[in-house]
């Protein structure tokens, strides 16, 4: 009996027997539309997840260049950017050309811990120099169930599609 218990405890400790229901993933398909304008600059884009108290739990992507204009991703700046310098540096990627992009979220927060089940909101915010700002929000349940949502296109963002499974 004793001989049996020890290997099971090891397996649990190494996470090898974790329940399979935690394998839920959020798949995100967002689009930066082609915009006909005299002076087109690539938008600054932030993608993150907020909990029910509107606090960010996970910054998924940040496409930007100079710090001067980071504040113009207004909600991102207030919720994350202005105080989470290290996180911003860690997640920073280059700005992107118009097109459709796929991202995903594994349910981990910025510290790498699984978030509790509940309602969350995905936010996609795009701000363009000499252009506008668009913010898409889509709420979803993080409870292991399959869900699909779309958000209408906005001036600075194409149709947003998310899938949970």
């Amino acid at each position, binding site marked *: 009996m004793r001989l049996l218990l020890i290997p099971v405890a090891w397996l649990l400790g190494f996470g090898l027997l974790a329940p399979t229901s935690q394998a839920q993933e959020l798949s995100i398909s967002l689009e930066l539309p082609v915009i006909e304008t005299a002076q087109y600059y690539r938008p600054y884009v932030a993608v993150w997840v907020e909990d029910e108290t509107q606090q960010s739990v996970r910054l998924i992507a940040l496409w930007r260049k*100079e*710090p*001067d*204009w*980071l*504040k113009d991703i*207004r*909600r991102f*700046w*207030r919720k994350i*950017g*202005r*105080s989470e*310098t290290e996180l911003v540096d860690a997640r920073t990627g280059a700005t992107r050309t118009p097109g459709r992009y796929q991202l995903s979220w594994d349910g981990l927060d910025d510290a790498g811990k699984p978030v509790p089940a509940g309602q969350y909101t995905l936010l996609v915010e795009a701000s363009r120099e000499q252009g506008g*700002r668009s*913010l898409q929000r889509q709420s979803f349940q993080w409870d292991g169930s399959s869900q699909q949502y779309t958000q209408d296109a906005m001036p600075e963002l194409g149709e947003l599609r998310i899938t949970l499974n």
Partner: protein
Amino acid sequence: MKKIVLATLLALSSAVASAHTLWVVPSHFVLSSEDSWISVDVSAANMTFVPDRGVSPNNLAIVFPDGERHAFAQSYQGRRKSQADHQLTMDGTYRIELAGPARYFTFFQQDGERRRILANKDERAAQLPANATDVLTTRSRGRALSFVSVNAPNDTALALSQQGLELKLLTHPADVVATEPVRWQFVLDGKVAAGVQVELSREGELYRDDAGRELMTTDAQGMLAFTPPVAGRYVLEASLTEDSTDPLADRVRETLTLTFEAALP
């Protein structure tokens, strides 16, 4: 001669103050890069952010996020507005403040006319004409404030001096967002100020029929609660006239304006 000029200037600025709202408006309320410069406009005007009269920038100061007070690096007094520039060399919240010392005015009636001298209750006896009646001395003070945050905001520059009418910014100015409630509290000499009259206005009055000004009064705890309806720049103007606890005045009159922005949700 000098005395006359000074008195005239004070009288002018007081006349301006009584008819106009004095505000400071920074070029940016939020900045995300180090060592940024800001430019501050100062004007006394009837319409919010439509400059009317430039006022002296001599009493303009900037309090850094560490609490240190600095004069502006450069300034210019224009006819319609004055401007001052400063470089923001550290992260946190800065307070921009236009505030002179409290001034004492003694009002009286003489030969059927209302007159005024620059004197407090100790000084007035020597200056008042023999046939002066209805003598009343007022201590008058005005402040115009605004707050600018570079990267993470902090609270050091929000601290109160406990002198005159002040605003406890329970909702940090960097967290004011359109459609979200704001809670601020007024204090007079550090004590809760009930019954302060407050007028809230926002930019763009020139381009709409309804100015959309909101009149409010602080409650028994000095609290002011409101929700900015739309994103943009606002001016809050508060005034209070009270019986004086200052032995040098019969009553005190305090005014305060705060320029702030409500961010996009």
